[in-house]
């Protein structure tokens, strides 16, 4: 039977990525080379940020029109272009990628699905599994962050993916006609061509793997030497603990000052004293003590917002040159809680003990404030607030945080004497406390709920695992439904035994 080879190309993209443009280019490419080509798409609501498939079939011009399919079929795709990593995974799932024939061109960047973003913990789908699947399923894989390549060229991913298609050399057309198609693509042809060219080559110096590490702190002579003294205490720590402890120490000192860093190390030492072997407990302590001691009070926020490094980062994020003019507006919403927290402890406590007064004050304070920190006035205000740091230890917020910290720490220490892994899990529960206002309150109640389960775990050998499971459950959803389910299970189990 006479069967001119039909080349089948499926493009999996997320609505809004410009898959239609790429499809149009592939069609133009085939026609420019005198081939017969057919393309199909699903327009409309299906494209509103949803996963969508464009499909192209082409074959050499023959005596009659061939019969071409309108959609891809499993095991019948020659070239699969995925404009995002999970879409590549979807392509494999649907059987569009097969070892016998499919060249898979995939952009490795992520566009996270809503389901991945709304998880209070880390809901990101594991990339490794997709990479493994691609390697297993495809005849050949060309995988790179074509999104970054496009953005760096001031263009969009359709252009860099078209470059990758040219680079793959799976279509029987000269590179020249690829170029002609891009060049002739109208309005933004120049940028498109830059992205196209960039994607043509695979020798790229990896920006990602540029070694990150900690530089010694800069500052006045006296402080640097004091820091050195503090750092010297590291060598006294067991080797496994040192790295996390150093990071923690930097974090804590950056938050407050060197004496605060000493506090940190003193607290840490108490865990090290009870620890041995791999020093899991101490490493966990080093991490979460630092997180607990660095709470987000108004002073902290003001400090972070007014730093030089922060201004630099914002400008870098926006790709601004030195001469570019830009204004930064912050969205603040202080409440009486924040205000009291910043006052001297006795005063803050006094006000909070008087609901009417607190409410009256709250009505004056509690509203959204849009402040321009790139302007002198509001920068100065935040700068002064950040300066309150030196009185931080006497604030109401500090009293509350320290009390909470001590209770939690003592719980861990007492537990450590009989069950070290459980103690480490108790420390790790600190992860549940994050966010501001209601979100933080919700986090704290989850934290309490999880730790309240401890009595149920008394003399259970798997206590640490159970607590770990509870914490993971608490991180699954906003309202702690998963956690409740776990706790109920635990309660009934206890009752049964």
């Amino acid at each position: 039977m006479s069967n001119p080879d039909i080349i089948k190309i499926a493009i999996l993209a997320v609505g809004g990525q410009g898959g239609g443009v790429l499809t149009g280019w592939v069609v133009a490419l085939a026609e420019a080379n005198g081939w017969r080509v057919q393309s199909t798409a699903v327009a409309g609501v299906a494209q509103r940020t949803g996963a969508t498939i464009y499909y192209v079939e082409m074959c050499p011009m023959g005596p009659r029109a061939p019969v071409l399919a309108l959609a891809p079929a499993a095991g019948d795709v020659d070239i699969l272009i995925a404009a995002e990593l999970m879409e590549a995974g979807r392509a494999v799932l649907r059987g569009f990628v097969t070892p016998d024939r499919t060249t898979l061109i995939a952009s490795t960047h992520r566009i996270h699905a809503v389901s991945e973003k709304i998880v209070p913990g880390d809901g990101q789908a594991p990339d490794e599994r997709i990479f493994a699947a691609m390697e297993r399923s495809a005849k050949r894989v060309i995988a790179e962050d074509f999104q970054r390549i496009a953005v760096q060229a001031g263009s969009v991913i359709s252009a860099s993916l078209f470059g990758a298609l040219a680079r793959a050399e799976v279509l029987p057309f000269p590179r020249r006609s690829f170029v002609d198609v891009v060049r002739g693509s109208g309005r933004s042809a120049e940028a498109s061509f830059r992205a196209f060219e960039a994607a043509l080559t695979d020798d790229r110096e990896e920006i990602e793997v540029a070694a990150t590490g900690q530089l010694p702190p800069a500052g006045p002579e006296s402080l640097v030497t004091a820091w050195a003294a503090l750092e010297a205490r590291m060598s006294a720590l067991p080797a496994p603990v040192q790295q996390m402890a150093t990071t923690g120490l930097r974090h804590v000192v950056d938050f407050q000052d060197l004496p605060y860093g000493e506090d940190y190390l003193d607290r840490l030492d108490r865990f090290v004293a009870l620890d041995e072997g791999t020093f899991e407990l101490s490493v966990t302590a080093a991490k979460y003590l630092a997180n607990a001691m660095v709470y987000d009070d108004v002073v902290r926020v003001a400090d972070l917002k007014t730093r030089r490094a922060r201004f630099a980062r914002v400008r870098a994020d926006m790709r601004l040159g030195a001469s570019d003019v830009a204004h930064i507006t912050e969205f603040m919403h202080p409440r009486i809680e924040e205000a009291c927290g910043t006052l001297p402890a006795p005063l803050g406590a006094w006000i909070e003990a008087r609901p009417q007064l607190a409410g009256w004050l709250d009505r004056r304070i509690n509203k959204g404030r849009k402040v321009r920190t790139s302007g002198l006035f509001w920068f100065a205000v935040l700068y002064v607030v950040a300066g309150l740091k030196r009185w931080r230890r006497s604030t109401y917020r500090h009293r509350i945080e320290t009390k909470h910290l001590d209770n939690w720490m003592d719980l861990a220490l007492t537990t450590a004497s009989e069950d070290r892994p459980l103690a480490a899990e108790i420390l790790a529960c600190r992860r549940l406390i994050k966010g501001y206002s209601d979100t933080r309150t919700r986090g704290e109640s989850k934290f309490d709920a999880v730790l309240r389960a401890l009595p149920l775990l008394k003399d259970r050998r798997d206590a640490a695992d159970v607590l770990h499971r509870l914490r993971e459950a608490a991180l699954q959803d906003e309202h702690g439904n998963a956690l409740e389910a776990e706790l109920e299970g635990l309660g009934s189990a206890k009752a049964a035994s």
Partner: protein
Amino acid sequence: MAERSFAKEVQDLRIGAGQEFRGEGILAITKALLECGVGYVGGYQGAPVSHLIDVLSYAEDILNDLGIHFEANASEAAAAAMLAGSVNYPIRGAVTFKGPVGANVAADALANLSSGGVMGGAMVILGEDYGEGSSIMQERTHAFATKSQLWLLDPRPNLPSIVKTVRDGFELSEASNTPVILQVRIRACHVYGSFTARDNQRPPVTVRDALEEPQRRTERITLPPFTYRHEMEKVTERMPAASRFIEERELNERFGGDGEIGIIVQGGIYNGVIRALQRLELADAYGESDVPLYVLNVTYPLVDTEVLAFCSGKRAVLIVEEGQPAYIEDAIAALLYRHQASCVLVGKGPLPIAGEYTGTVLMDGVTGFLREHGEDLLPQGHRETNGHVTETTDPELEHTVPIRPPGFCTGCPERPIFAATKLVEENLGPHHIAGDIGCHLFSILPPFEIGSTTMGYGLGPASAAALSAKGARRSISFIGDGGLWHNGLTSSIGNAVYNESDNVIVVVDNFYSAATGGQDVPSSRADNTSRSTHHPIADAVRGLGVRWVREIDRTYDVNRLKNLLTEALTTEETGPKVIIASSECMLNKQRRERPLRNDAIKSGERVVVPRFGVDEDVCTGDHACMRLSGCPSLSVKTLDDPLRDDPVAAIDESCVGCGNCGEVADAAVLCPSFHRVDVVHNPRPWDRFASRVSDLCIGSLQRWRDRRRLVFEERG
């Protein structure tokens, strides 16, 4: 105007006989209509034929030149009713809408039209929204054809066939005095291909001529006693006439000579079947098949003689009919039984009883059929297991790849409306919430998960009617501007006023029929050269007697929305409470403004472009902001920091600076990590001076403090 411009493409509609036309299915159909001398066209947008309406709008000059009247109808009902133009006059008319939901709306007019019959060719171009990419319940339009007895055309999905079927369709309609439906599936509407064009024809009789010489034929009107005669006519005259025409003109096609087994397939599915046969080495690239095929380009009525002829002498016949119920299979089964035919009839069985017939499904189905009844035809490789199964797939993969349903676009003005609703419910408790049809229905998905039902276009508030009791907690229902003008004004608003409902109605006004591609509606704020826009929704609802009406012209003002919703849910005022929340569809706004803005920047104008950012060291990674947004540009990012367990929020370069993030952070008292950066392009000397001064002061303050503390910086 529309989301996609066809200004360039429509120029191809002018090409004449012998020239090659290249383009999408919908453009080819439009060209075919012009070649058929159609006298009037109309329709209502909806995937997959939205673009057909857009094309017609863009082609209005060409239509005018040919004396063709174009109507952008208010609904499918209005579109179908428009075909009455062909009842008493020899004028060809065509309207388009989606099926089956469009046909549901049009059913009344379609039934009346079919009863009396037509003189001029009347055609409904119906985009069958079924299978992948469909946004509606999965049903078939076929039932409308059989119940009202109008003929259903389902051409092979290539441009020449589709174009030919448009021509045949009009003649069939005239030969049998019956309106016809030309059914095109989703991908066929958007299939890019080519065909040889003919000259456009002026309608021999124009609507203008008709208006000058009005005609009426009482016996064509749907009223007793004529209705009884109409019914007889349908079966004794029109259907036989149709069958004769279909047979004589060979509208259905036979391929692949004779053989002991055969396949009967809907025209629209033909390519998929041939692909399966190609993969089984039973057909070549041009469709030359070893297996006899009977292709139904007309799926109703069936031509009994053709069917019997094809089945005679066959051992087994496979019917490839997508969707359910299996109308064609059942009809053919009955036919064969009545004629004591001997061949085995197979359909649903090897092929799935429901769902889209994708390439994979057809490959399996056809292979299964042949294994059972024609194994000798199958190449060795395919006799046992399927050829394509990929054992390479990791079973865990299915749980790894997240589902990605369509959702609100970046900067969508509807997002803050549902953020506000979610926040109000946190204060006042949960309410019964009814959804409607339109982009706003994405609210039912995470992160908002708002809305319990959707009962049809413009029926949101109507669908909450049962759930209303004086003094009880009020229900909230949403309706879009598109749905409102489609029929919601009467079915939903009027209904609520007349029945003294106390419920809350939120009109989501984004200035367009956005979900279908941004077509204008009466309340659109764009100037439309050929349509009347700028009709305020507030006037319309007040005109219907709504007393409590509140308008908000910046939906991103979440706090204001919160207050309005709270007021609406708690006010003593009786009668429906209508909140009209208006902000332009961001997709359309960007399409309109971005080019202008870029030009302005190029030409050296001072332009301020806002974009949002997140301070990663202030963000604690609780993702509360995302649970109130779901914006594609607001996502998560893993930091290279051993002290961090969870990824932080990050905003990418696709942010359009709509403001939702900041407003929500404020309204929900989230966290202070959001900031807006206003980049000033082509700053004026004053801008430069002012920012230089503040930069200098800020810089020295920062240095002053850095000289007095330890500054920790990361390498890399």
